[in-house]
């Protein structure tokens, strides 16, 4: 098991390394002088030089890379160029909010998607199935930010049942916390529910005709039992991977959703950093998201081995 974990971690290293190196290279390949761009239009040459030193852009490329690598390995991303705050602290603070939003959105997706997928898959070609399949196709083409705008218009502006922006921490007031995150979580989770719907429907359709399900039928078990105990059990395993991937894309989607609802999460941190070219903060955000991805992958592996007795590490 330990051996396996180490191997997996090795295989997952590129997930962290590649985006980080890419950022490193891109900054240095960027046309123009990034230091000048960061320092702003009205900066004096001393100020630009100062930024250049802070970013370490005045050394040779190899020296820069080694210094950079040394810092990343020590998880030292330095300070924000603007806020005079350690990047690690900033990221940790904002990440907590994003994780909460992601978990809520995941709950929306997992509660809606698979249930509808099973309902549609077991009633193939029925009215419900056709309506849901069409709905999920539209859902896949629907950008989450547009859905968010529409939801805000209907529930926030016209009916005024949910606040249109802002965030209240859970410890401060759990009810207000949920009230504020309801629309963001729904707009984010609903589209992932469409994906989960398609996969679980396909999984059920696939399992319905597996030989072991035919065996259960041949033993005279009622269809309800066959579906509940035999079909679901088989369809649930591949769903673990899909839910894992979903969690990943939810984190990506959260970046956009947070900016619409003014939620002070990682997305907002990243967007502000991108607009100001606050390079160390961008690096820190990317690093954090990549690490979460790696952990997510490991959790999926573990769940897999729990759910499928054929897999042992």
């Amino acid at each position, binding site marked *: 098991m330990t051996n396996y974990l180490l191997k997996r971690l090795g295989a997952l290293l590129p997930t962290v390394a590649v985006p980080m190196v890419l950022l490193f290279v*891109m900054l240095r390949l960027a046309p123009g002088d990034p230091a000048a761009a960061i320092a702003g239009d009205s900066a004096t040459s001393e100020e630009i030089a100062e930024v250049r030193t802070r970013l370490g852009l005045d050394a040779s490329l190899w020296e820069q890379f080694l210094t950079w690598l040394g810092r990343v390995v020590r998880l030292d991303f330095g300070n924000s160029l603007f806020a005079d705050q350690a990047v690690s602290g900033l990221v940790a603070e904002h990440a907590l909010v994003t994780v909460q939003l992601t978990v809520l959105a995941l709950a929306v997706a997992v509660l809606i998607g698979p249930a509808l997928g099973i309902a549609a898959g077991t009633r193939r070609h029925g009215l419900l199935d056709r309506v849901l399949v069409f709905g999920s196709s539209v859902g896949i*083409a629907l*950008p989450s930010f547009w859905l968010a705008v529409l939801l805000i218009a209907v529930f926030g502006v016209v009916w005024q049942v949910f606040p249109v922006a802002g965030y209240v921490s859970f410890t401060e007031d759990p009810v207000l916390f949920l009230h504020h995150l309801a629309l963001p979580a729904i707009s984010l989770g609903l589209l992932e529910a469409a994906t989960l719907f398609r996969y679980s429907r396909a999984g059920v359709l696939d399992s319905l005709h597996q030989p072991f399900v035919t065996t259960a039928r041949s033993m005279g078990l009622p269809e309800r039992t066959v579906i509940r105990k035999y079909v679901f059990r088989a369809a649930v395993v591949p769903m673990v991977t899909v839910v894992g991937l979903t969690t990943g894309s939810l984190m990506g989607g959260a970046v956009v959703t947070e900016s619409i609802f003014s939620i002070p999460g990682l997305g907002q941190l990243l967007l502000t950093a991108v607009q100001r070219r606050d390079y160390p903060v961008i690096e820190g955000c990317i690093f954090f998201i990549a690490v979460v991805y790696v952990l997510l992958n490991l959790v999926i592996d573990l769940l897999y081995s729990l759910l499928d007795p054929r897999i042992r590490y």
Partner: protein
Amino acid sequence: MLRQRFRDLVHDRTAMAGAALLGLMVVLALLAPLLGGDPYRVDPTSTLRPPSASHWFGTDEKGRDLWTMVVHGARTSLGIGAVTTVLAVLTGYVLGVLCGYFRWVDAVVMRVVDGLMSFPSIVLVISLVGVLGDGVATMITGLTVVLIPMVTRVVRGAALAVKAMPMVESTTSLGSRTSWVLLRYVAPEALSVTIVQAALAFSVTVLSVAALSFLGIGLPPDVPSWGTSLSAAQQYFYSAWWIGVFPGLAIVLTVLGLVLLGDGLRDVFDPRSARK
């Protein structure tokens, strides 16, 4: 064989519905200067006007004709989409074929591909634009970098499959020049999976461009784009619902068209991975 597949495609209703939607958007984009007015003409006297005979889709918060903004937005989206897709597909295709053929290229490139694929693409594009600075060229670069792995992976798969085919194996053992084998067998076979990926890459680009411009990243704010229009809608939805509806519909129809076309293409060109 290719001609037969295109004939199958024409008979695929899903694919044709997708092609029709996409075709409509392409026509709008190409004829935008004729169909709409001047997207840069700001008219402070007629802001937020509802749809009417003179302004089919109404006007936006700066008094620009929304129909003009939507058709010119199609130009922006589809233009960036087309350039990005071509760049990503060409690069990914070459890399994929090389990976499928040379083991050492494969070892290096696939590590990078895995690393990029498992990362949320929108976050990466945002960050790349953040590092490189705003601009259309920057956006295309960022999107291309994100899309290349997607194409590389499937092309590599196809190339590996072709390489294992007996006729190719026998040519290699007879000492044919590697480049000849690549051209003769691997490249054409990988082409069909690439076509499917192109449709997917295109739809990802359209969504990403919309998302980025919605967030105010990458595109200059005066360039007409669906995302920029929608982001204005956030403030004016109550008084001007049309700003929030028409640009959104344009995105959905374009992406839906590409997704349906992609599904149809997959059924015809890549039946093994097509859903049952």
